[in-house]
């Protein structure tokens, strides 16, 4: 048992800290710090800066640009990035489709897609959820019927985040309707410029448009765009969703948001006084800091003690608790802003501070966190069933 990082890991942390604070353009980091929406160009630029340094997809196999890092080093990479206000690489590319192609794709598919996926030359969208297939993903109904050397795809996907920027979409489609629902699903890559693909925006409660419906009407997809084997898509999806849970507890960014909140609270009281003098507010800060510490330490336990490659049982806690705390901090910021939080639509000429204007849209937006990536109820189901052995 010991607290200190090894000399090697401490040096690694310094290297990452230095990189993220000096090599990623300031305008990108400022946008993240202000909790404002990043443009597509900013997200691409940030990934390409990282990819040029060889650290955009460390979780991939080394031959495709990955790094032979320990789980702890990967954790440090991810935390330092967030603390430096650097947006993490686009999850659809780096954490979802990339690892699936690297693990299950043919050599040809790998060569065709992986370099461009790492560099965000292709912007991937996710085509999993459907109107009638949310947490019960396997009941999806979008069909892909083989005709010669093509699949003909019909159906509708939804909740496609940033689909408006998408070049390609990785989908789960039903290729065999006759068998058990999990056994008839395939993993298919579709060019979003194909005739018959239509992206329709969905406005969310924060007024933003970050998710979309994607409709497929007789879309013809070359059979070579299938990843792995036909009807094995559910296995690949489970592999992907397992990866999704790992990076889904954003400890560093929540920590950063909480510390920013503490800073603004110092002058957010009446007449510029400190709200931290209000014991109820101070108690909330102290409690949230302690809860976040517990979460971060749990993440550290998981990465420090999972050398054998098996997921640490406590990892299921991370998504559940990580999103709860993410939400709790966004809620606190709204309370700190008070009536100023109503000025969400204010532009130039407003006297309300920017942090107060974005507080409520952020709070509303982050209600999504406990729903995506396997809803928190799904996480509880996993904990109860897999860890505690409580199977109904």
């Amino acid at each position, binding site marked *: 048992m010991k607290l200190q990082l090894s000399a090697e890991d401490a040096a690694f942390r310094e290297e990452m800290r230095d990189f993220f604070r000096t090599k990623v353009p300031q305008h990108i980091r400022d946008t993240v710090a202000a909790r404002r929406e990043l443009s597509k160009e900013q997200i691409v630029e940030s990934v390409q800066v990282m990819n040029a340094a060889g650290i955009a997809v460390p979780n991939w196999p080394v031959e495709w640009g990955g790094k032979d890092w320990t789980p702890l080093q990967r954790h440090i990479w991810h935390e330092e990035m967030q603390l430096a206000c650097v947006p993490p690489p686009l999850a659809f590319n780096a954490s979802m489709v990339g690892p699936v192609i690297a693990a299950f794709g043919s050599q040809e598919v790998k060569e065709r897609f992986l370099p461009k996926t790492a560099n965000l030359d292709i912007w991937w969208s996710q085509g999993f959820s459907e109107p009638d297939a949310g947490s019960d993903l396997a009941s999806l109904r979008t069909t892909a019927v083989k005709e010669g050397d093509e699949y003909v795809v019909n159906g509708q996907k939804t909740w496609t985040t940033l689909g408006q920027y998408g070049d390609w979409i990785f989908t789960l489609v039903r290729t065999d309707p006759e068998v058990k629902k999990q056994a008839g699903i395939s993993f298919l890559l579709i060019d979003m410029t194909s005739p018959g693909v239509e992206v329709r925006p969905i406005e969310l409660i924060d007024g933003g448009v970050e998710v979309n419906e994607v409709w497929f009407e007789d879309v013809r997809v070359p059979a070579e765009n299938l990843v792995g084997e036909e009807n094995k898509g559910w296995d690949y999806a489970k592999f992907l969703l397992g990866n999704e849970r790992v990076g889904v507890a954003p400890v560093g960014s929540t920590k950063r948001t909480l510390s920013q909140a503490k800073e603004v609270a110092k002058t957010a009281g009446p007449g510029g006084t400190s709200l931290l003098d209000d014991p109820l507010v101070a108690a909330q800060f102290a409690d949230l800091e302690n809860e976040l*510490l517990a979460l971060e330490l749990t993440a*550290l336990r998981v990465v420090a003690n999972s050398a054998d490659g098996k997921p640490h049982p406590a990892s299921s806690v991370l998504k559940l608790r990580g999103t709860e705390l993410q939400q709790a901090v966004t809620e606190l910021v709204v309370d700190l802003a008070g009536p100023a939080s109503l000025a969400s639509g204010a532009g130039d000429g407003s006297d309300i501070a920017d942090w107060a204007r974005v507080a409520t849209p952020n709070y509303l937006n982050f209600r999504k966190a406990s729903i995506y990536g396997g809803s928190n109820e799904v996480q*509880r189901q996993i904990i109860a069933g897999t860890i505690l052995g409580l199977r109904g």
Partner: protein
Amino acid sequence: MDFLLDSEQEALRDAVRGLLAKAYDTSETRRAATKKDPGWDEKTWQRLAEMGVLGLPFAEEDGGMGAGPAEVSIVAEEIGRVIAPEPFVEAVVLAGGLVAAAGTAEQRAEIIGALAEGTLVPAFAHTEPGSRYDLAASGVTAAESGDSWTLTGVKEPVLGGERADLLIVSAAVDGGTGLFVVKGDADNLTRTSYTTYDGGRAAHVAFAGTVATPLGAAGADQTEAIAATVARAQIAYGHESLGAMDTALKTTTEYLKTRKQFGVPLMTFQALTFRAADMYVSLELARSTVSWATLVLLDGGDAAQAASRAKLQVSKAGRHIGQEAIQLHGGIGMTAEYSVGHYMSRLTAIDHTLGDGRHHLNQLMANLVDHTVVEPLP
């Protein structure tokens, strides 16, 4: 950074677990032990001494084993796992720890040697009626006359106060709080013992000009030694709670698997299994913070802050897990015959010893503006 035990530490854990599993094979054996004075089993205490457990954290030249916070944490967790009533944290970590921190070489050799052998059980007499969690003493005062010291005032509740062969007493001295040693059979000392709801014993201890020996330098302010030792004991209590919470959760999940209602096992009902999942989340988060606090002790970091963080997390987790363990059991969980209620009682007692969650939250609030973020690693 590493949270894992090495092979010697694993061997210690297995040995203590084996010993305590035998001593407290059912909750009925524990209940029987707590029914008669002193509220714990002298034979088990002797076996712990033979295993070297009672001397673990002390220097070898003082008669100890030369181990440290990691080994203490292992024993405390095993104590909690079966809620063994033996006063490991109270006598070894706290009272013994004060002797190690403040005592003269002679006092250390005499008291710690005997404590490690199991022949002397000390207790820390500190809490006073109305003092809550104050680290300073005010109700018991020390007076010097000639070359001897006397104590006057009341300490209560003093955990294990009547059984103690030796009391380590905090008392107001000029310029702070001093520590004194009082023999259990001293003149002008009255100890009135009673039971505590977790099966333990506490006492009203009255000093009426009781002759006492200063622990360490005569009349010196020992606030620092008290604070440092209390932090160690708070963290050790955190580990004891982890063991207790772990068992409470295991007992509850086992019950959900086996107990049938409406013709099906209780685990059929998602309203129950989700609550068990939340108990697991509380336990793992508390485990992370408490284990980290021990790493901070090993690293020589800010022990008081780490102890407050651990105690706050454990206070919340202990209440959550204790309350839910009983609720998910239903009526059987309310009975003295069944185990989980005793786990909740013990968790509640630990919570209110050396600072509950609210007290420690207050400590952390006072330091809120000292840092921008809480960094777990140095």
